[in-house]
């Protein structure tokens, strides 16, 4: 955070100088370049990705394949959307994957017990709200660093799932038939439309409501947010609860996608969700980013997953590319911050 302070070299805590000497003009244009790269990196990557895969596999750019990818990405997209709110406030959540797993067990067993779908869905939402409230209370109210608190709850959810599972895989049909992606409105699966609607709503909430502004304010400068009269704790708890609700929905779509709940279901989603947000370009330090960028991050990751298989590359390479892109994206971000700080100093 220190690198983001705006004081122009007055504070003696000015970070040690970087090797090159700062010259006003060059710094400025360099900053422009880096800033442009920062903004356009993800769109460029997406274009490269689409072009490359459509050249490598004729099947890639077919509507059938793309809708398939979109349907399969639903749970990750929902989690990443909610996670963006938490990360925008400077927090983190590493419990999302097992929360999805645990809730999907609940959903599956309620389905197996023959409950009406709407009841099951509401139960999933309620469960998600509880999960979000728990994390929110631990981090915002009880002031436990969010990485530590959610590590703890992640372990609890993992065990919760394991205990519930109790060596019996539960197979289940989707809560609502459209969750499996079959039902369409025109060309598009209804599920995909719902996910897009969630993103649109969250985007509007973030950009057009008091609550959204408060989220950016907290992530940008928590002290100033308090001094501006923002109820920081409440906003943080609500952010966590929204993430929880989306996790509840994601549990339903996850189940619809995989059809079975096992001992460690959902676990892989935790890191993927964080990676989606980060690749999207939302700053892990908070204050900067958007859900639309996260959507781009999700698309990048799931398309990569799909395209690599279609292109005949062993899927083992997937992580290499994801990891590499994360590092490149944050490195450019880091460079922009460093250069920006130096530009400010030399004003």
């Amino acid at each position, binding site marked *: 955070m220190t*690198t983001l302070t705006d004081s122009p070299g007055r504070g*003696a*805590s000015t*970070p*040690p100088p970087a090797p090159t000497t700062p010259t006003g003009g060059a710094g400025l244009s360099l900053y422009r370049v880096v800033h442009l790269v920062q903004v356009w990196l993800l769109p460029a990557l997406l274009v490269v990705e689409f072009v490359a895969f459509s050249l490598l596999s004729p099947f890639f750019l077919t509507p059938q394949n793309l809708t398939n990818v979109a349907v399969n990405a639903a749970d990750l997209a929902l989690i990443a959307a909610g996670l963006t709110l938490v990360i925008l406030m400077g927090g*983190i959540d*590493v419990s999302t994957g097992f929360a999805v797993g645990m809730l999907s067990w609940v959903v599956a067993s309620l389905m197996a017990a023959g409950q009406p779908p709407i009841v099951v869905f509401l139960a999933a939402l309620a469960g998600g709200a509880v999960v979000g409230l728990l994390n929110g209370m*631990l981090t915002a*109210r*009880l*002031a*436990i*660093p969010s*990485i*530590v*608190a959610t*590590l*703890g*709850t*992640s*372990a*609890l959810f*993992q*065990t*919760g799932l*394991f*205990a519930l599972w109790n060596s019996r895989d539960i197979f289940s049909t989707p809560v609502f038939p459209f969750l499996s992606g079959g039902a369409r409105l025109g060309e598009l699966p209804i599920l995909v439309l719902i996910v897009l609607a969630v993103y649109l709503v969250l985007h509007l909430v973030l950009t057009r409501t008091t609550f959204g502004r408060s989220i950016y304010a907290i992530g940008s400068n928590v002290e100033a947010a*308090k001094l501006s009269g923002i109820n920081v704790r409440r906003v943080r708890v609500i952010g966590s609860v929204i993430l929880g609700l989306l996790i509840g929905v994601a549990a339903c779509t996850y189940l619809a996608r995989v059809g079975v709940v096992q*001992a460690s279901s959902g*676990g892989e989603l935790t*890191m993927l969700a*964080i*990676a989606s947000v*980060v690749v999207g370009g939302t700053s*892990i*330090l908070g204050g900067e980013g958007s859900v639309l960028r996260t959507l781009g991050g999700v698309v990048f990751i799931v398309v990569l997953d799909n395209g690599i298989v279609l292109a005949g590359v*062993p899927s*083992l*390479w*997937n*992580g*290499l*590319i*994801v*990891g*590499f892109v*994360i*590092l490149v994206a*944050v*490195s450019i*971000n*880091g*460079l922009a*911050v*460093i250069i920006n700080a130096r530009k400010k100093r030399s004003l």
Partner: protein
Amino acid sequence: MSDVQTGAGAASAPTRPDTRRRAPERTPGSGLKPTGGLAGLAKDRRVVLLALIVVAFIAMSLISPYFLNTANLLTLLQYSAVIGVLALGQTLVILGGGGGIDLSIGSTLSLCSVTFGLLSVGGGMSPWLAALLTLAVGAVLGLINGLFITLLRLPPLIVTLGTLYLYASAAMVLSNGVDINGFDRDGFSTIGQTSVAGIPFQVLLVLLPLFIVGAFVMHRTVFGRQVYATGSNADAAALAGVNVRRVRISLYMIASTLAAVGAIVTASWLLNARPAAGSGFELQAITIAVLGGTAITGGVGKLSGTFLALILVAILNSGMQLAGIGSTYQIGLLGLVLIVSMLVRSRGAVRETAL
């Protein structure tokens, strides 16, 4: 004292003998009432952990008659040797402050496993030589983390998330996703499968020495002091002549070299090198480090705390196994203990953050 009430920091000199550290202290900071001896004791995470260990020990011996069996007690740590080594590295990285954390050590372990397997089987090298080279590879992987974090001033959480994917996937690609075995030569299985004086080799000659050396380094060397200084106040450390970047880079290198040690121990123990050998270990290692009293913000914590946390986890694991409870429950218990231990701490912190 591994007091985790950051800010009010009551960490005392590592060089002083224990008896002095236990002396009641004037409570620093604002508006806090002076605490008595008992409360002062409870502020040291290690005292809490010792109490928990005693409770767990008694509980486990009641649950299972086999728990107190000497063989069981001695092998208690065997299963925890690898995770203990990783937790040691994680503790150091977190201690260095600046948001220090290493999510990639599990993947580093995987990649080192594969490296080791390829060198010793594919390369036909003596397993011992391959082990040495693997340590060097581990150090390089940590160097990569450290350079990204310090030179580009990137958040460690994200850099190591990136390398988590990178290293794990590299392990998969290099091994083609299959286990490597066939390095049970030159007595290599000694590390993982033998005992010395009834104590498993990897505990007596890997885990314990590393913790002892680590504790010594942290308390008695210039480097160790620099780590605490950097974690406590990086600006002040720089002004006091500490090369903050170099200290932090070293910590990441140490952590991933320790992950390589973990890989070698695992390979010798299981006699195969799995490309996913370390997956999920990072979270456990962080959990144990934090449970041991290391403040996630750096500067506060002791290796002895991490070690006690490890023992607690080992007892829980072992006891629950004997009681026929699945190993996943241990993870949940670990999470619960972690949260509760943070709740004990955070009352002061809550008041501090309440504006």
